[in-house]
């Protein structure tokens, strides 16, 4: 799905990602974890074609990023970034409709298919109640749900998320991740998400990449890489890993330094 070869990128005079390589395969659910400033967001911007790499190559579905036109790319990758700053008071349903943009020709009216996709995406994110509300009047968590619906309405095979659930309460966050899990399992949606919450990652991601100072520290199946050793290297905090029977997945407790 996405091939990354020796990717280097960053901002003028400051390289953030210093040569990383990996492949994302179809149907993977990948978590990208790491401390602040480890380059998670930068990496995601580079994968989404926003930040041109200073070295190396990124290919999406076999085509190098720089050879994809913006609309083509937006039909392959939908991305949601951390902060949204929406200027005009659009009703939420119109925001979700904007997600159909890469599929529409210029003078085309929206088709029944577009409307059906929008309806379905709002239904699965449970945002129908917000449809008529103005996006500027919503709380941060509600906005994130609407934007998630918008990203899903792009109907892409790949979804890149950068802390896209950070403002949601626990209930909503788990609910959205369950939706993503279902899409991942049933429709083969490839999900790559940057997360701060290690435990959410442990619950939903089947593969985790640990980043530190722009390098990959560990990359592999969640069960395998979620070790005390790796976590202590990355976060420099003592941890305790346990596996509650009711959950069936590893969970992490960060311990206060002695």
């Amino acid at each position, binding site marked *: 799905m996405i091939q990354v070869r020796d990717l280097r990128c960053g901002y003028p005079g400051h390289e953030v990602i210093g040569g990383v390589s990996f492949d994302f395969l179809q149907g993977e659910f990948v978590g990208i974890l790491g401390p602040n400033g480890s380059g998670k967001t930068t990496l995601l911007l580079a994968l*989404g074609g926003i930040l041109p790499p200073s070295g190396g190559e990124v290919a999406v579905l076999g085509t190098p990023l720089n050879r994809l036109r913006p609309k083509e790319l937006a039909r392959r990758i939908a991305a949601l970034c951390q902060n949204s700053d929406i200027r005009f008071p659009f009703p939420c349903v119109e925001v979700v409709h904007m997600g159909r943009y890469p599929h529409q020709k210029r003078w085309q009216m929206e088709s029944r298919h577009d409307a059906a996709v929008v309806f379905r995406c709002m239904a699965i994110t449970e945002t129908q109640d917000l449809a008529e509300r103005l996006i500027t009047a919503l709380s941060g968590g509600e906005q994130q749900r609407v934007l998630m619906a918008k990203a899903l309405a792009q109907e892409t095979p790949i979804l890149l998320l950068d802390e896209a659930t950070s403002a949601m309460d626990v209930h909503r966050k788990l609910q959205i991740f369950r939706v993503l899990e279902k899409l991942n399992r049933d429709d083969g949606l490839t999900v790559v998400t940057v997360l701060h919450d290690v435990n959410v990652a442990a619950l939903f991601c089947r593969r985790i990449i640990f980043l530190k100072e722009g390098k990959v520290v560990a990359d592999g199946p969640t069960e395998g890489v979620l070790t005390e050793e790796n976590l202590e290297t990355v976060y420099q905090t003592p941890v305790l890993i346990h596996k509650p029977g009711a959950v069936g997945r590893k969970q992490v407790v960060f311990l206060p330094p002695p």
Partner: protein
Amino acid sequence: MNGTTCFQPNIHGRSSLRFRLACYSAFIVLIITTAFVTSGIGQFHIPYKTVLHLWFSPFEETGGLGVDERIRYIVLHVRLARVCLAVAVGGALALAGAVYQGILRNPLADPFTLGVSTGAAFGASAAIILGIGGIHLLSLSALPAAAFAGAMLALYLVYLLGRIDGRLHTTTLVLAGIIVSTFLSSLISLLKSLNEDSVSTIVFWIMGSLSGRSWVHVLLILPYVAAGSLTILYFARELDILSLGDIQAQQMGVDVQRVRFWMLFTASLITAAAVAVSGVIGFVGLVVPHLVRLLIGPRHSTLLPAVFLAGGLLVLIADTIARSLLASGEELPVGVVTAILGGPFFCYLLLHRRKYLQL
């Protein structure tokens, strides 16, 4: 896909087609009414029956109808031309304002606050002094080009000043606009004074006026305004998506750089065309988009035509007031009237900026 079965179009919440058409029609009716009213007002008071008669049979020989040829000239060549020019200028300025606000994600942006209008006025007046913009049609057509050069220059200066710390801030940009605008205004005054021009031509460029304009001027700017407006409408959907932010828009497949370039280019072009014939008329581009957005929502494909009509209406009304307010028959610059109408509104927006401007 079971969403399809229970799909209800009325979850769309977009202002319905009927409402939009009602708004457009209301604006058009108001424009025509104001045009009719204004045609009777002036130094020559003309009975409305005559105005109506002339409007409906403009090419008929007037001798037999008992209508003075002079009256006919005033109604059709002076006042009607002025009405059309007011609508075109106002529409262009308001449309440019809506585009600047959308493209720069800045609620305070408009041709005036960004310095573009004054830049255009500077370009045009410099061209006149250098003698390339005489009164003949051929040389007159160089005026919009000179105005456009001035407009782009001003926009570039504002952009340089506005991004001093590397980022384009809402307020810094407008501050830079005001600085450039003030500076260029004084340059215009200086140029004109050195050229021993009358105070009235200086006032014309700085405060705006539609006095003494004719069909020639209408024809002069019509191609620019028409082509510019269509180009802007062509990008309506991209303007919507840009309000989610640059990165989001790019992630949704909008070629942000290209759209921004073309929109800044086009908005400045129609501003320049308007300023070349009317001087600097402030506040129209700032006030009108906000008002119309409150009325019919922010979606640009619906918003932009309404903004054009409303801008045209506002300048038409302002021009009517400007030329009929003083008992002496002297005309006020139309920019004075728009500023008097727009200033309090600007204050209101600032006071309620949380609600309307998201500042």
